[in-house]
């Protein structure tokens, strides 16, 4: 049965029409709201490509049913974090370090790191590696990603 789901995304209240209240948030963001930051990687919560912030926490949108979200919960995607003109310090650090190859995973890397750095201002390299241990990158850009997160930590 089609339902209307109120959401708060990137600072705006929106309504998503979905045929299934248990549709994962990812599809509402990508297909209904035409956002490109969160990406489908596995649909299993294993890779992190779909990561968004829900009330500041990094959440895997591919396994987050719409029905589990409350209208007041603040959802932020990569687009809401910053823009090419006004990037978030983590986005800027990734650009400065040239920290991607294909970049398909990079939404997850940036969103996971931004949520982590909001609470951990001075992480060691080992801390950063642990914080990203469940985000997968296949191109092998890990070292640049760690450098970018370290650089961002100094700028938040």
């Amino acid at each position: 049965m089609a339902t209307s789901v109120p959401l708060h995304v990137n600072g705006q209240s929106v309504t998503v029409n979905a045929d299934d209240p248990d549709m994962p948030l990812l599809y509402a963001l990508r297909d209904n709201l035409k956002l490109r930051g969160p990406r489908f990687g596995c649909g299993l919560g294993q890779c992190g490509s779909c990561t968004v912030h829900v009330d500041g926490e990094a959440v895997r949108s591919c396994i987050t049913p719409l029905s589990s979200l409350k209208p007041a919960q603040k959802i932020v995607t990569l687009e809401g974090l910053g823009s090419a003109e006004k990037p978030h310090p983590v986005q800027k650090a990734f650009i400065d370090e040239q920290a991607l190859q294909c970049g398909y995973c990079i939404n997850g890397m940036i969103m996971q790191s931004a949520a982590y750095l909001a609470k951990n201002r001075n992480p060691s390299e080992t801390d950063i590696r642990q914080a990203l241990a469940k985000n997968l990158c296949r191109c092998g850009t890990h070292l640049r990603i760690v450098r970018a997160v370290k650089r961002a930590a100094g700028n938040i």
Partner: protein
Amino acid sequence: MIDFLSTRREFLKGGGTMVVSFAIAARHAPVIAQTGAGAAKSVAADEVDSFLAIGTDGKVTVYSGKVDLGTGVRTALTQMAAEELDVALDRVTVIQGDTALTPDQGPTYGSLSIQNGGVQIRQAAATAKKHLVDIASQKLGATTDDLIVEDGVIKPKSGGKGVGYGELVGGKNFALKLDKDVKTKDPAAFKIVGRPVPRLDIPEKCTGRFTYMQDARVDGMVHGRVVRPPALGASLQSVDENSVKNILGLIKIVREGNFLGVVAETEWGAIKAAQNLLATWSKWEGLPEQKKLFEHVRATKINKDDVTSNIGDVQEALQQGTKTLKATYDFAIHTHGSIGPSCAIAEIKNGQLTCWTASQATHNLKKQLAAMVNIPVESVRCIYLEGSGCYGRNGHEDAAGDAALLARAVGRPVRVQWMRADEHGWDPKGPPTLIDLRGALDASNEVIAWESEFFIPEGAAGNVPLIAASLAGLPRETAYSPGNIIQNSAIPYAFPNIRTVCHRLAETPFRPSWIRTPGRMQNTYANEAFMDELAAAAGADPLDLRLKYLNDPRGMELLRRLAALSKWEKRPSPQKNAGTGNIAKGRGVSYVKYELNRTYVGAVAEAEVNRQTGEIRVPRFYVVHDCGQIINPDGLKNQIDGNVIQTVSRTLLEELTWDRSMVTSLDWASYPILTFPAVPEVVIELIDRPNEKPWGAGEPSAALIPSAISNAVFDAIGVRLRSVPFVPAKVKAAMQSI
């Protein structure tokens, strides 16, 4: 073996002679160019117009048949074109992989985008520039020697008014043949090539603005998902349409032979329909037993032998040796493991098929799709959009085939994205490789014989048959295309007696294709590890032994620089002081001259082996890399990092699993890859040779990683790892066997 696995049907080419032209995209084409009527643009590989256009505003459009697969090639090609034309970088736009607009420069594989594709673009640009300077000289009344070009404006060296490219040819064709012998720019004058220019795509990718294939949308588009058989060779017996009748927006269940898919108005609707659809399939258990894989490989019929080198008399020399060694190496089946599952959009309208695809070979895909859906090849257009990294021929082309069949069935544009299990289960695989080696030393520890036999599937780098065509029983290729996997079976060392032979097998368990450094990685693994075995038998330092038998100054210089970079301690392996306690430390070296005719790379791995658990940690890699002229050193380092890290993952962890019916490693839990905590530090030294040819860098350094790790483990614990992946159980078993 069943049809799907080793397709044997005739490949029928699309017939017909109807010519359909597509609109030339605007000089700065929109991301998704639309089809329509218009004059056809040249895509012939010998025409300047195929590669270059200059607008009235002086802006340059480069048409590249090679595409950026996430490696930064678009930026590098932009640098090469801007440099050669003497224009600022931001004047150049690169259109990639659109069969209506870009020349067929061959698939984007084999580390050839710069080496072949970029060099062709450079030649086109140089031909164009020469022409522009010639006509400017007439216009300005000056000799060409008296003219210079500054940011697309040709002017007298002595000063005075110049004339811009846009004014000279803006909006018009060059109508020039590409001159392969044209004099290109003196590297001493380079201002853009050789610099670490930031990648053009990265800001958009970091802010959610980039259009990946997976983001593309077409008017009227609906969503498809495939329902694959539960066993590779299963036949579809029945479909219970009632099982999905409650899915809102379901448009159609598409069934064609064993091809089954669903189309729905929404993506989630299509996913749910595919998950819930009940279908009955026949039983099929035709796969070999996994634990007997290499017995199966050894027993497979050999269709032919490729002798890749044959020097002296190996049999005689092996018998004369004071010490003889023999060893067998194997290398597991790997999946590409793209983070973003394969995706495509297809539309069939008025007899024309348009496919938006992340294919690395749009010109070939066009032919495959034409044959499959029986549309004249001239009526098919494939438009490249960058997808998730593919590292070879993954599922992008198959998703295009799926989209085409579904689009044909519903008469609307259909977007297909594979689910994770489709990607892990159905992308073509890097075939298993089995290698036997024999060597001999004489009384003075000189290597006098080297013999190797590689058991690898037949075929080269052709088109991999599309899954949709195989399942639906539609025309497709008949031959295997595992890539050019015989390369680097021959060795760079000057031993007096050498014989290397590739036994080309009639069958391999899974549809094969190339995965980064295909064959070259597996072959180099065995060769460079066995080289280490010979060094150990001779009591020689393994780096010294390589230097001793190389007669290539460039390779020797590289190895000496590697020794300095890695602070190589000269001594034989295994080492005597590997450390006390559970952790033993060692280092190993490996060397390759890629395909024996291009990029040189040397690597040293540091490894730590836990004697109790058998776990291997690789804290550090040193790499020295010589690919001739470097276009973008930062992009190059990024590629080397990626090669090392991805291949450490493949070497330590990765192995396809299956039962007798189907792949069982269908997600990241069952096919784990390397994660952040285990990623090694990578220390890189680039050797830039601006006056040499630019060679490829997307693959060569990956060739070294398995052998360097194996050699480092031997150095640490005196145990030789001859079977990739080096999982703890295998390491412990190897430790117990000595």
